[in-house]
């Protein structure tokens, strides 16, 4: 019963190989046809987000291809990307990624757009795990709270009032959730402090050589943890992890 018929084995094998080859050929062909568009799509994702936090700035480069990596405690992480907006070769603003380590349930990732004068042009939360329905009012889709930062700078309000109202600052907390806004306010303030301390270097960063531009790859998209509004939105992809 267990005698092997080699011919059968070979036929089985070759048949399967054949099917595999045909299937792969089709897929490879589709891949060739879509490759360029997919790459462009990926850039576009990041571009949209960076554009949002640099709102109102007049720049003529594509910040997505013009980025550097920085590490600093005030930004809360290592090798965080910073995108540069320029007019000509002059840097007019930067989009800093930052991490607030003291969220209610873990890190909050944000993108802070700052112009050369040190004024916030926009802030967006890119990833967080705050309690849905309570801490997630920091998302732009859920409330306007995040827009409070627009136009603020280290002098406005004065540094000691860069806090939530409960702690004697100017920023609103949400009813029932102080921890989250406190963390975000602190992170934005720290990003500004970082900018102030390093503005010279940041503003002097050179534009990239043409052939240095890397393709930005969002990898395989993340599986939704909870299907919460946060992850539902493509904007929530962390820019920091978009780069490989």
């Amino acid at each position: 019963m267990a005698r092997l018929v080699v011919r059968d084995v070979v036929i089985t094998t070759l048949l399967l190989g054949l099917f595999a080859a045909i299937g792969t050929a089709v897929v490879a062909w589709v891949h060739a046809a879509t490759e360029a568009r997919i790459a462009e799509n990926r850039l576009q994702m990041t571009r949209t987000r960076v554009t949002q936090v640099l709102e109102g700035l007049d720049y003529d480069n594509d910040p997505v291809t013009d980025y550097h990596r920085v590490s600093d405690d005030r930004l809360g992480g290592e090798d965080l990307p910073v995108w540069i907006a320029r007019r000509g070769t002059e840097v007019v603003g930067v989009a800093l990624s930052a991490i607030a380590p003291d969220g209610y349930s873990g890190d909050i990732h944000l993108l802070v757009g700052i112009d050369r004068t040190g004024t916030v042009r926009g802030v967006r939360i890119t990833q967080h795990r705050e309690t849905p329905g309570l801490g997630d009012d920091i998302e732009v889709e859920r409330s306007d709270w995040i827009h409070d930062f627009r136009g603020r700078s280290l002098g406005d309000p004065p540094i000691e009032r860069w806090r939530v109202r409960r702690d004697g600052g100017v920023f609103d907390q949400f009813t029932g959730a102080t921890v989250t806004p406190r963390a975000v306010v602190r992170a934005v303030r720290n990003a500004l402090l970082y900018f102030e301390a390093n503005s010279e270097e940041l503003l002097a960063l050179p534009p990239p050589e043409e052939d240095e531009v890397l393709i930005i790859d969002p990898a395989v998209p993340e599986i939704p943890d909870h299907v919460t509004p946060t992850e539902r939105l493509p904007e929530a992809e962390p820019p920091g992890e978009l780069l490989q």
Partner: protein
Amino acid sequence: MLNAILAIAGLALVFGLILGYSAQRFRVEGDPIADQVNNLLPQTQCGQCSYAGCRPYAEAIAAGEADINRCPPGGEATVLALADLLGRDPKPLEVEEKDKAVAVIDEQTCIGCTLCIQACPVDAIVGAAKQMHTVIESECTGCELCLEPCPVDCIEMAPLERSLQDWRWSQPAPSPIERPREARQKATEEHRESA
């Protein structure tokens, strides 16, 4: 492109080898499920399931062609056992469960035609040609197959006699809060009737 095709086809080749080899090496023979199913059937061989006996029905169940609720002699117990074995949801019996009975031949009328002997699937009828026949009670499965062929209608099904020894505790009625209104009313009516 060529890379791609080669890589995947290569994988597939390896895979095909494994499969081709194992397909021959480990062929599964027989149908153990049908055997297990058959073991649960009551072996009355009555054909009420519309199959020619218990074994064919068992094979049909194993092949996924027949539902598990078609054997009236087996009753609810068999349905439950089959559901358990096959991981299916138990269903109510298709036909009503009958009381157990055995065939009795009216020995005065019997003409000894032997037709019933041929019909009995379990050889529970004894008697020779032109002689009176009798049913061996302990071996009769109550399938009723012998009723039809008898030319003089001398066979009857007699319910099994119940004595004190056979008396059994019934399952207590469920709590009233586990029964919908209709069932409760029915129960009280029955109670009243019996009183």
